[in-house]
């Protein structure tokens, strides 16, 4: 029965699942969303009239660790998917939870970074750098937070036995979203942190 249901779902004109198509469309559209914020940051880089400036504040080793954590959370996420696709619910739970923890760590790092910058005199209204930096990374952080919520919800559902091998799509979709958030950070890490004219 379970098998027949799966086949029914795939009875679409393209042969692709509706929900997965929706997710990819959302990600394609989200490119424009982050692109707009990144463009504003790049446009205003080096145009702040008063400090503090990026060079005064950025702590590259710290942010590198954050970036590394988020990158590794992508690995654990894909391992969760690999586990459920092979029917290993237990491993899936472990990896799912690890991913959520890593995501939370990243958020914590960001909260720390924001607070630190704030102490050193950078706020949303200080200068162009403060405005563009906080809003860009803040929206990324909001995306990560939503991702953590999704992962934790899936974890809770799976603890109650709600996710089996046939439901691997739910994990796959959460994974697509999660990896996207990760690649956005790859871009931000390079363009915002590492490249400083």
């Amino acid at each position, binding site marked *: 029965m379970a098998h027949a249901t*799966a*086949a*029914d779902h*795939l*009875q*679409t*004109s*393209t*042969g*692709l*699942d509706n929900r*997965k*198509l929706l997710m*990819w*469309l959302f*990600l*394609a*559209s*989200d*490119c*424009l969303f982050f*692109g*707009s914020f*990144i*463009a504003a940051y*790049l*446009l*205003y*880089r080096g145009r702040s009239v008063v400090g503090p400036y990026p060079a005064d504040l950025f702590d*590259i*080793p710290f942010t*590198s660790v954050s*970036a*590394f954590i988020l*990158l*590794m959370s*992508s*690995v654990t996420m*894909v*391992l969760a998917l*690999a*586990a459920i*696709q*092979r029917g290993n619910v237990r491993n899936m739970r472990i990896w799912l939870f690890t991913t959520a923890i890593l995501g939370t760590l990243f958020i914590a790092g960001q909260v720390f970074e924001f607070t630190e910058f704030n102490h050193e005199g950078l706020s949303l209204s200080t200068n162009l750098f403060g405005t563009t930096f906080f809003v860009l990374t803040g929206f990324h952080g909001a995306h990560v937070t939503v991702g953590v919520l999704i992962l934790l919800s899936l974890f809770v559902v799976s603890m109650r036995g709600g996710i089996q091998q046939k439901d*691997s*799509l739910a994990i*796959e979709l959460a*994974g697509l979203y999660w*990896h*996207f958030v*990760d*690649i956005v950070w*790859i*871009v931000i*890490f*390079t*363009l915002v942190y*590492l*490249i400083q*004219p």
Partner: protein
Amino acid sequence: MTLAEYRKKRGEPLIREDADGAHDDKHPSALKYVQIGLILAIITAAEVGLYYVDMNFTLLVVLLIALSVVKFSMVVLWFMHLKFDASLFSVLFTGGLALTVVVFTVAIAALGGSLT
């Protein structure tokens, strides 16, 4: 007539070859994922290392962007399965991405900004 019956009648495959779930064996193994994770970590380390190297700024920008493009592509191709998945997904995603890059490059140039 449902799509399933229609396809049966015409002798078409019921499920696309590249549709997900149909061919689990095409997914890379967990080991492969870990290997890729390792490469990603190494590239990140290299990026941070480059940051501290004193070199020509333009060269640095080119190198850093090249490395992040590699990381970006690896995550998209393997972790997001775009390498193995239906080409429609690739078209949609690269379409959105390309549009983003093109229009904002033009907009930033028109506003008198530049990457460096």
